[in-house]
């Protein structure tokens, strides 16, 4: 008979069998037995954060940059409620997280005990599934299943709530069931016929476009390879969602840049005018589609996704292939090659006019901005950061707002898993703790959080974590003293009533860096920018970089609300050219 183990021991046994190396957490009364057991397990390192939300985002950064599930350990009550934002964020962006929370002892559940809350009730809508462990005999099975649910199909967060008496109780440990090797094919429901139909559509298309998303990244690095092969094979133009950046090289000529609200002119116009739209691992998010009724009106639409509930949720499609992106693309490429269609040659002629049109749109140079010699333009700062870091394998995280869009527009990603940003939930304060998690997964790599000064203050306390573990993350703050995106909307839509979007009392970030025990660097003029960025890159340790940028800059191009893709507002340069002057003005 095998030995009886305590609940706390079983937790670590499970983590070991699931090959977990890092836990992000914060101790408290209801998880103390698990923390007590930590010392006996050398293969698992605990990263002590400063706030449970930080633990969640750090685990997200870890998961998204490594492809492995992130593990979070928090206490009951406030510990659990603090992690809710991160769980919701992970749910929206399909990030695999396993959150273990302590709970008050079983006999006290429901009595409003100290630090009690209905954790499974609160987290039910923001997890794929959650469990309250009421019997020690179920613990190992539930923990193994938790990892399975988090990582299979469309990934996402799960939570296991373990009462304190269960952590002390003893039971036998059961190993994870060895899964029949299905290679995820159990989730593949697409058929050869559907693939054939798609290829027929592809060979007929005169104005095709591929629109890829985060599903390609989630499908693993092989999927990005497969996507590149498919795009080269077909000669089709490709655009990407915010989450999909890096799946296809950002500097390739077939890449049109990001699409959507702040996407490029060429990508959005191509989406609007195309006759075949192939969505690979994206979900027709409302920041992408704009006005639904006028979304890509002339196209046949194809949707490739692992989640059947994504199909026809927002946009009705003509053909749906449900399955793992990597498997679907490989099947498509294989079939094309087998049929010796030679799409590359035959297509080239067929779609050459389409490419000419795209080149015309490209000439608008929609990401352009008016640079300045006096003030640092935020776009310029991101461009310089890109130029100075592109020679090394750099990981970028962001907060949420204008700086996030500028980062997506001006930083070019060539590999998957290098870009971690909160897209679905749009969580300000995501980037700094995410950078902590990324750096844990990639200790030797350069990790930069492109931040805004408002966002970064929401989770600033995690600098202390970075210093504790000597994580050399670089917090690159585009400081414009405003909640920039809020200010932009107020300027464009609310008659410049800048209600509460100006931060009147910002801290001195240099002194703050000092206080945390890391390095502070400030840049105020374009002349010194390159030198200062280089200083940041070269410094071996965490850095807070306070980059003072033009506070009035807006993020263009943009699709105004309720407008279709082909009615974008372009940047100030373009607006200048189209400005109505003199006589014309009187007529308006």
């Amino acid at each position: 008979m095998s030995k009886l183990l305590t609940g706390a021991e079983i937790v670590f046994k499970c983590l070991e069998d699931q090959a977990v190396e890092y836990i992000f957490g914060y101790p408290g009364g209801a998880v103390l037995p698990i923390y007590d057991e930590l010392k006996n397990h050398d293969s698992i390192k605990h990263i002590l954060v400063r706030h449970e939300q930080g633990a969640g985002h750090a685990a997200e950064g870890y998961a998204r940059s490594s492809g492995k599930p992130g593990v979070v350990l928090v206490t009951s009550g406030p510990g659990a409620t603090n992690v809710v934002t991160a769980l919701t964020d992970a749910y929206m962006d399909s990030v695999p997280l396993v959150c273990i929370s302590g709970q008050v002892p079983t006999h006290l559940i429901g009595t409003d005990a100290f630090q009690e809350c209905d954790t499974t009730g609160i987290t039910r809508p923001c997890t794929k599934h959650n469990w309250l462990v009421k019997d020690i005999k179920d613990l190992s099975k539930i923990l193994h299943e938790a990892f399975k649910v988090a990582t299979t199909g469309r990934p996402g967060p799960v939570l296991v709530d373990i009462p304190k008496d269960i952590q002390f109780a003893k039971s036998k440990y059961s190993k994870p069931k060895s899964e029949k090797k299905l290679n995820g094919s159990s989730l593949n429901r697409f058929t050869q016929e559907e693939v054939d139909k798609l290829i027929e559509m592809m060979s007929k298309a005169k104005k095709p476009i591929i629109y890829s998303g985060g599903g390609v990244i989630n499908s693993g690095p092989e999927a990005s390879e497969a996507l590149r092969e498919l795009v080269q094979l077909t000669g089709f133009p490709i655009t990407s969602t915010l989450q999909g950046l890096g799946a296809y090289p950002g500097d390739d000529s077939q890449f049109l840049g990001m699409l959507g609200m702040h996407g490029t002119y060429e990508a959005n116009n191509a989406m609007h005018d195309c006759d075949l739209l192939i969505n690979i691992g994206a979900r027709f998010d409302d920041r992408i589609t704009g006005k639904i009724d006028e979304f890509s009106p002339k196209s046949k639409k194809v949707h490739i996704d692992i989640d059947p509930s994504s199909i026809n949720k927002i946009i009705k499609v003509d053909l749906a292939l449900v399955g793992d992106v990597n498997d679907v693309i490989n099947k498509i490429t294989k079939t094309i090659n087998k049929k010796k269609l030679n799409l590359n040659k035959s297509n080239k002629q067929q779609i050459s006019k389409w490419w000419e049109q795209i080149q015309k749109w490209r000439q608008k140079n929609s990401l352009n901005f008016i640079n300045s010699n006096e003030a640092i333009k935020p776009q310029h700062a991101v461009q310089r950061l890109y130029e100075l870091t592109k020679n090394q394998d750099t990981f970028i995280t962001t907060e949420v707002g204008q700086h996030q869009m500028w980062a997506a527009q001006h930083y070019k990603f060539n590999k998957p898993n290098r870009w971690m940003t909160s897209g679905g939930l749009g969580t300000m304060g995501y980037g700094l703790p995410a950078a902590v998690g990324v750096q844990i997964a990639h200790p030797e790599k350069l990790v930069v959080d492109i931040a805004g000064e408002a966002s970064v203050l929401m989770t600033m306390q995690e600098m202390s974590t970075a210093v504790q573990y000597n994580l050399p993350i670089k917090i690159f703050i585009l400081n414009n003293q405003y909640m920039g995106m809020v200010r932009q909307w107020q300027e464009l839509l609310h008659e410049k009533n800048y209600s509460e979007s100006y931060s009147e009392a910002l801290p001195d970030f240099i002194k703050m860096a000092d206080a945390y025990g890391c390095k502070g660097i400030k840049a105020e003029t374009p002349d010194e920018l390159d030198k200062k960025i280089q200083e940041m890159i070269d410094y071996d340790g965490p850095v807070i970089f306070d980059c003072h940028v033009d506070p009035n800059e807006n993020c263009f191009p943009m699709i105004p609300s309720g407008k279709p893709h082909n009615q974008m507002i372009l940047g100030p340069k373009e607006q200048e050219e189209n400005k109505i002057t003199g006589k014309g003005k009187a007529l308006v």
Partner: protein
Amino acid sequence: MAKSKSAYSVATKKEKLDTHIIVVWVDNEAGVLARVVGLFSGRGYNIESLAVAEIDLKKNISRITIVTTGTPQVIDQIKLQLKKLVPVHKVADFKREDKSVIFKEMALFKIVAKKNKIDKCLNACKKFNPVILDKTKNSAVIQITALRREIDKMSIKLKPLGLISASRTGAVAMTRGEKVFN
């Protein structure tokens, strides 16, 4: 059109709503009903009636029958979202007009009245298999099984005859013939 100030799109035209009966087989475990009902409220779906009970004691399977309304797209989403829940085994869906499926609801009516009125009540319920569950000199509890609309009508009809309390179940459903839900 007035200029939209929202960062979100404006709601577009309303489509026709259909009534559907959704049947869900779930593991009978703590919180499973909350998951199903929470999915409906969280995503703004409608629940007209709900009936739940364990149907397989050995396998611990419960059967949930939900009557809902929605556009075809919404009904599709409801089914697909339900299938994503971990304790859900299978989901079936029928239009209310579907002739191959039997839908039934049960109601208990308490009538407080003299005998002649109670007899009138029973007579009115004749078509709906009335069963007298309790009877005193001045009262009766009558059970009927019928469709939702029929029960609605009966409650109105019995009001002047002494109906003082009604208790109703949600609809349950079963296919006709040898066929079973799949």
